[in-house]
């Protein structure tokens, strides 16, 4: 039986990521405009592509967080703006998403119905999941010109032709 090849640990982890500049002639405006930046953020095992003022609906966050409280999501897998795209390996350092817990609605009722025919077995159950509605306040990527130049030296900056 064939064995799987040994798993190789990647040499880099949670660093600045790979940056691709879209228009090298125009250059990159730093810091990027707050309305023109999107992030791919991972929260509770799911990933979302978020922009400012977008809403995320997920299963219940922890009970420590009150309604109306703002908190930070640090697990950002990708950042994109009009000028550049940054892919994290696996996450982008110095990038975060500020998010407010708006409300905690319940989902529509889902009926779980199980039946085995001709055996007299049938059962029915209803379920409403408590969800959290999060609103994205701000997407941040802290990078400066020196940072971009350092990445170019390391070989992590590319441009689109």
């Amino acid at each position, binding site marked *: 039986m064939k064995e799987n090849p040994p798993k190789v640990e*990647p040499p*880099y*982890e949670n660093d600045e990521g*790979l940056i691709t500049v879209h228009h090298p002639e125009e250059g990159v405006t730093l810091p990027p405009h707050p309305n023109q930046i999107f992030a*791919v953020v*991972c929260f509770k095992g799911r*990933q*979302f*592509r978020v922009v400012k003022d977008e809403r995320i609906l997920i299963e219940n966050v922890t009970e420590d967080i009150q309604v109306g409280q703002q908190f930070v999501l640090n697990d950002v*897998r*990708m950042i994109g703006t009009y000028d550049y795209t940054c*892919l*994290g*390996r*696996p*996450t982008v350092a110095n990038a975060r998403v500020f998010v407010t817990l708006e409300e905690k609605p319940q989902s529509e009722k*889902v*009926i*779980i*119905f*199980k*039946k085995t025919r001709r055996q*007299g077995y*049938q059962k*029915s159950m209803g379920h409403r999941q408590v969800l959290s509605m999060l609103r994205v306040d701000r997407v941040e990527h802290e990078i400066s010109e020196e940072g971009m130049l350092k990445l170019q030296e390391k070989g992590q900056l590319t441009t689109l032709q």
Partner: protein
Amino acid sequence: SYLVKGNCLYLDGGAVLGGVMFLDKAKILKLAKGFRGRSKNCIRIAAPRVTKALQYATRDRKQKKREMRSLWITRINAGTREHGLKYGQFMSGLQQENIQVNRKVLSELAM
């Protein structure tokens, strides 16, 4: 003619149709909206169809996750082939670079 009493359908002559219904008649007919022909209006035809529909719904809530992933893969494949790569090459490249963006988001970016 029939009589719905409690949760059972009682027919003429004392027979009870189909065992015990777990919902009353109005709720069954509400769940039967959009069914074909008399299945949406007549309780004797709607009731077995509604139970089947609920079984399918319960099963398909699990299948939906599989089908969505398959759809995302198709979309990523289409997007990468426009740029000269195939899905397998693209994903193995991402694995080597330890980029962990999932397929749902990749398909959104591809569209």
